[in-house]
């Protein structure tokens, strides 16, 4: 991840060093020094035990699939043994304050620093979850599933097991060493002697709790890469940033986009900023970012063919650029849909925080793609595409630029999913409209907006589906490229990207109205719209008019069919031997009558009438029912 964001490795590394420094001390420890050391060792063990407490319990609301669910249960013995070790140490250091304990001796200082770093690292991990009701923890970041995943949990437990074993051996050694003038063990030494077997047991128990036996270096790297769950500071928006600075700032901006996206996702249902204007800006910025990313990837492919002609890197970069083309084109299509569809205008709605951040991302990606360091999406700042050698002078430069594009694409993938979910809710709540002035003249609607036709909202949602698929494909291609060149962004591939719930599921969210039709059905244009598409008309306003004409025609035919069926149905109920009655019933009367639930003379509701097949000859029973219906009608 970006270097400005604190990561777990920033704390784990120093903790490693301090523990190693503490146990490598070769001199004798005086009585007082040992008491102070024991005080800090107690703190360190307590902190380590807290990591075990944090493991996801089996009843977690969002459990990860796989063996990690049982890790907490399997770590219980390790927790117990660490606690026993700490308890056996505690009496020897009673009465010492933390300040007294860490300032007197270098070993105590190292153990104190190790405890501090581990505590800070634990705090960092805790930023990714929030306490929920009933002890359930709620995931608050994209990294939360990574933290509870089997490999990362195994890597963390491996680290803790290593520390415990190291400290056990050191405690044993200290408990047996005697200063020159002293032949009997002191109280602190006896405490260490008591703690040693517990520590050895704890080490073995932690090892046994590991969900994966050999987590490997990749898992350790992933553990170290876990960032604090807080947005990095906004990079200053200075123009004229060189390529190296853009490559530093784009990952930070992308991280801010990810944070804003996740934070706003919870507010999307009620926030005044959840409007078409915001979603339109997101789509615009995503399209521009994707377009710039495609240009960058093509330039990188060209540069890679110059610097590494014998590898398949140029071909892979070119393939990723092709994927990126599909991605930005799908975003362009979404922007086109938002030309017509709207949630209306509200002067005080404001924009989402995502809109601000993603605009920054588009600007920086553009400045990386084009030669003009002051590039902006305007005619005035238009510029030729950046020269490949200027973009990446060395193979290291290719990796830096690729990292930037990877971060940008990953961020946009998450925006796609979140916006899709918000728009699904807006559609279900009937919030999407079209300006009535764009409707055909015969639509006499005395309001600035009319409800959006279903064909258009379906097309919009299909557009988001396509954008999610295309952008995710581009992101996966970049995941593989990043792994291939060992780019710092390769950790992004390990973070699960949110998937799109099935449309049918989404429509049954609480408080949402169910959609009238199954949603997976693609929008099938009617005859007028088909004719326009044959003429290669892409203007949404014209397509909207065609869709409305088609819809009106469809509604007319549907209404006429219903009336005709009702008429035929009633006619079928009338005995053929009563032509006089047939003649007295007019179609308009039939259409105005509710035949499905007409009260019967005896107070019963007639449900039979709606189930009779008009095409079948009437049975005696049906004839009798029909006769009753007719007689009731004559009242």
């Amino acid at each position, binding site marked *: 991840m970006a270097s400005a964001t604190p990561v777990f490795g920033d704390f784990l590394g120093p903790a490693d060093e301090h523990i190693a420094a503490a146990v490598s001390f070769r001199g004798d420890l005086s009585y007082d020094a040992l008491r102070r050391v024991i005080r800090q060792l107690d703190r360190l063990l307590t902190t380590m035990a807290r990591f075990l407490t944090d493991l996801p319990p089996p009843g977690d609301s969002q459990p990860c699939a796989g063996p990690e669910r049982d890790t907490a249960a399997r770590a219980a013995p390790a927790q117990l043994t660490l606690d026993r070790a700490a308890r056996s140490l505690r009496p020897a250091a009673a009465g010492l304050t933390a300040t007294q304990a860490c300032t007197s001796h270098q070993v105590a200082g190292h153990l104190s620093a190790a405890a501090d770093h581990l505590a800070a690292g634990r705090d960092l991990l805790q930023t990714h979850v929030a306490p929920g009701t009933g002890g359930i923890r709620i995931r608050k970041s994209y990294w939360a599933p990574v933290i509870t995943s089997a490999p990362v949990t195994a890597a963390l437990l491996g680290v803790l097991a290593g520390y415990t074993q190291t400290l056990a051996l050191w405690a044993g050694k200290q408990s047996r060493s005697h200063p020159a003038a002293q032949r009997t063990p002191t109280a602190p030494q006896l405490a260490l002697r008591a703690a040693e077997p517990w520590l050895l047991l704890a080490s073995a128990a932690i090892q046994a709790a590991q969900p994966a036996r050999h987590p490997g270096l990749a898992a350790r790297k992933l553990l170290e890469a876990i960032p604090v769950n807080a947005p990095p500071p906004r990079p200053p928006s200075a123009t004229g940033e060189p390529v190296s600075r853009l490559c530093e700032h784009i990952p930070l901006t992308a991280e801010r986009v990810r944070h804003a996206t996740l934070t706003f996702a919870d507010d999307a249902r009620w926030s005044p900023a959840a409007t078409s204007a915001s979603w339109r800006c997101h789509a615009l910025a995503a399209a521009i970012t994707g377009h710039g990313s495609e240009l960058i990837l093509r330039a990188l492919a060209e540069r890679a063919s110059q610097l590494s002609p014998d590898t398949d890197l140029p071909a892979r970069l070119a393939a990723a650029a092709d994927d990126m083309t599909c991605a930005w084109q799908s975003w362009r299509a979404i922007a086109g849909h938002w030309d017509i569809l709207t949630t209306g205008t509200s002067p005080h709605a404001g924009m989402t925080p995502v809109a601000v951040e993603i605009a920054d991302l588009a600007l920086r990606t553009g400045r990386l793609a084009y030669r003009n360091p002051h590039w902006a999406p305007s005619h005035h700042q238009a510029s030729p595409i950046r020269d490949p050698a200027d973009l990446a002078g060395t193979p290291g430069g290719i990796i830096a630029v690729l990292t930037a594009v990877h971060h940008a694409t990953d961020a946009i993938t998450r925006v796609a999913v979140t916006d899709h979910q918000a728009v699904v809710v807006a559609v279900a709540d009937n919030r999407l409209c079209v300006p009535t002035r764009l*409707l055909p003249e015969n639509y006499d609607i005395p309001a600035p907006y009319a409800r959006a036709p279903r064909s258009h909202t379906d097309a919009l949602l299909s557009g988001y589906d396509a954008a999610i698929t295309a952008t995710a494909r581009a992101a996966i291609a970049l995941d593989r490229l990043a792994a291939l060149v060992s780019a710092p962004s390769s950790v992004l591939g390990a973070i699960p990207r949110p998937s799109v719930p099935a449309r049918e599921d989404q429509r049954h969210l609480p408080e949402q109205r169910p959609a009238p039709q199954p949603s997976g059905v693609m929008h099938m244009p009617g005859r007028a719209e088909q004719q326009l598409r044959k003429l290669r008309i892409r203007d949404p306003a014209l397509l909207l008019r065609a869709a409305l004409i088609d819809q009106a025609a469809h509604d007319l035919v549907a209404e006429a069919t219903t009336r005709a069926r009702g008429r035929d149905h009633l006619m079928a109920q009338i005995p053929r031997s009563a032509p006089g009655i047939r003649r007295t019933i007019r179609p308009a009367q039939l259409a105005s009558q509710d035949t499905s639930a007409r009260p019967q003379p005896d107070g019963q509701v007639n449900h039979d009438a709606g189930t009779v097949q008009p095409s079948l000859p009437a049975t005696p029973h049906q004839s009798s029912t029909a006769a009753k219906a007719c007689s009731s009608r004559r009242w």
Partner: protein
Amino acid sequence: MTAAEPGFPGTAPGSGQPTRGKVRDMPENHEIGARLGQAVILPEILAAGFDAFEAIRMAARDHQDRVPTLFAAFMTTANAAVDGREALTIAPSLPPAGQARPGQVLPEETGAGEAADALAVLAAALGERLRQAAVLAEVPGDQAACQQGAAAARRICELMTRGERDAGLR
């Protein structure tokens, strides 16, 4: 992107000379420009403004894919045109839609650079007209709509105006 690509910003069509940092003259008269000029009363200005924004949007969408270097500029222009149209949509004095429609503001074969120039001119005229209308408007809703519409038109003008750098692009 090559220098020979038609419609690439940098030279005034037909002249071969670069134009620097300003809006050029409208390349040709079109219906929406004439309507804007002839509109006198507020409802007429609002209706013509609505159609002008719609015409700009359609023209920007038509041209956004023609030149890669202007993709972002045209996309952003279309977005600003929607903003402007949305602002005018809720103006209380906007009359119901009549016979008039935005129509095509630019001929099909217009190059991207030339199209940008034409849109900048139209947006400048639109912005000025709406600014004047905001002064005339008595109802706060109309005033706000005209002010927001004028701001959107100014943004379009800024987006589409060619700059000093064009000469160096070839």
